[in-house]
């Protein structure tokens, strides 16, 4: 009895597992699914994760799609700009299946077949939209130091809106999440002329730097010289003023000397004598010079006349 009930439990578990495998399908967080009964899609989209009931194959078949954002980029291709330049561009997009039922109707078959079909449709739309948008703008809208004149974002938006509108009109069951430029370049021959131009611009910068350096240095030096001369001249003017002030101050004592000009002159002469015969001088004098005139009338061994 005990053995039998164990057997029954095990059997029941196995039956349950097989039943689950046959009648239940899972939709993952990242998936969306649509069920086709004898090849015809049913009306319901299973875009929420969970376990759902289905009749076993061959009555019903489940088509599961990745509901996540998928990356795709178009070919790096050359198109003319509005100012008749040539620009190579490639755009990347993030796209996702938004309506699995619609997608299955337009792109029938297994995802391994239908996804490449959808992507080639997308690529065609991208190519058309991109060529149209690039053709509406000059190169200065793609690259510009002035943020107001730069239309980079606007061009990306134009392409995205264009593709989005086409997707909606055709009701493809998928939509764009984002779009941006992946690569922007110039035709190979143009890169060489750009290099030549860059080179000559660099030469201009080199000579400008050399000349500017020289002239700036010269200006600084001559300014400094002029400033130095001015400073010294000012100082000399100051010195003259100071001396004049001193002389004016000294002149105030003049009335004192005017009490007796003879004495004043005499004292000046005495002072001058003292100052001139101060050091390293040789003085030659005879008997007439005081105080040596004292020797004059002394008896000498000179013959008298």
């Amino acid at each position, binding site marked *: 009895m005990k053995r039998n009930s164990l057997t029954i439990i095990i059997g029941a578990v196995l039956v349950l597992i097989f039943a689950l495998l046959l009648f239940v399908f899972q939709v993952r967080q990242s998936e969306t699914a649509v069920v086709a009964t004898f090849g015809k899609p049913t009306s319901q989209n299973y875009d929420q994760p969970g376990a759902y009931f289905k009749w076993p194959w061959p009555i019903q078949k489940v088509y599961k799609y990745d509901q996540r954002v998928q990356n795709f980029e178009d070919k790096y291709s050359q198109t003319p700009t509005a100012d008749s330049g040539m620009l190579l561009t490639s755009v*990347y997009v993030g796209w996702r299946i938004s309506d699995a039922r619609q997608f299955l109707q337009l792109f029938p078959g297994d995802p391994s077949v239908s996804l490449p079909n959808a992507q080639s449709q997308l690529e065609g739309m991208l190519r058309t939209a991109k060529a149209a948008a690039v053709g509406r703008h000059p190169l200065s809208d793609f690259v510009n130091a002035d943020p107001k004149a730069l239309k980079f974002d606007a061009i990306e938006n134009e392409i995205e809106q264009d593709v989005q509108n086409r997707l909606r009109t055709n009701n493809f069951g998928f939509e764009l999440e984002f779009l*941006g*430029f992946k690569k922007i370049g110039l035709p190979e021959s143009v890169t*060489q002329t750009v290099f030549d131009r*860059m080179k000559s611009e660099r030469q201009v910068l080199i000579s400008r730097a050399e000349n500017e350096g020289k002239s700036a240095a010269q200006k600084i030096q001559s300014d400094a*010289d002029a400033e130095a001369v001015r400073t010294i001249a000012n100082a000399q003017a100051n010195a003259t003023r100071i001396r004049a002030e001193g002389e004016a101050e000294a002149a105030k004592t003049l009335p004192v000397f005017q009490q007796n000009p003879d004495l004043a002159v005499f004292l000046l002469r005495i002072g001058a004598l003292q100052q001139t015969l101060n050091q390293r001088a*040789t003085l030659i004098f005879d008997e007439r010079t*005081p105080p040596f005139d004292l020797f004059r009338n002394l008896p000498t061994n000179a013959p008298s006349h």
Partner: protein
Amino acid sequence: MSDEHEHHHGHEAPEAVDAGSQALAEALGSSFAIVKVVMLLMVVAFFGSGFFQVGPSEKAVILRFGKPVGEGKGALLGPGLHWSFPYPIDEVVKIPITEQQTVQSTTGWYFTTPEQELSGEELPAGASLNPAIDGYAITADRNIVHTQVTLHYHIDDPKAYIFNFASASNSIQNALNNALLFTAAKFNVDDILTRDVAGFQDAVLARVSDLTEQAHLGIVIDNCQVKSIAPRQLQDVFARVTEARQNQSKQINDANAYRDKTLLAAAAQASAITTQAAAASANYVKAIQADAKAFTDVLPAFEANQNLFAQQKVAETMALVLTNVQDKIFLPERADGQPRELRLMLNREPPQPKSATANP
């Protein structure tokens, strides 16, 4: 009922039938035992298949009937052995991610192979850039630069990162490529390469943040490094510009140093001139005032007897002078009373000997 009826009719050889049915029952019994063992094994195998291992540089998420088990970062299972219900109840999604992810841009750099990158040796640059293989960005002043950005980020919202994007890291890479093109389109070549390298990097980072936030990629950017170089075809001429600019600033620095030196010297000289003038003037005034005082002091004596005063003063001065004077020569009067003629050799220094050999 009909089966039982037939059974009833077939009781012709009960012993043989009994033996046969016994053998059958035994056979059935033993094969049923085998089936039971097989069933048990299948159940064990079914639940046993729920064990799975997560490697050191990956994470796993368990989906129960399609929905992730756990919320936010709690949904991520780290390395080790884990168990889940087998399919179709649970499903395990493994994601090759580490704590910090790194992505590098792909469309801004010239062509190199991974081997060349490792060895550091590159093929010489051609005259032009081949659009099929060489990447670059066009700057606002329509120059060409090579630029590359490396982004480090970590996953903040695993649910968004894993279940909303087929390849989130590729989406981030596209955002990086776009950010380089967009930012280079706004910057001039000299700003990108030398003048505003940090500003360029910040602008690239801002654009990447914008794009990843708009797309709800569920990541947090840790940092990004941008490196940019001039086209290899123009490296030497770009280097010469840098050199010329360095020379320019050196010339200006030298000139500034000269200015500082000159102005300091001038200021010092000016200050010396005024100081000297002030000192001289003050001394002059003091001397004059001292003279005036001396004058006033001696005036009564002079007025009392001019001659005596003069004599006295001259004698006093001569005494002073004679002590200071180096050579004193006294010429007595000639006997005939005529003045003496005196010849002076005005050369204080003794004549140098012509040479040592001429005058041994």
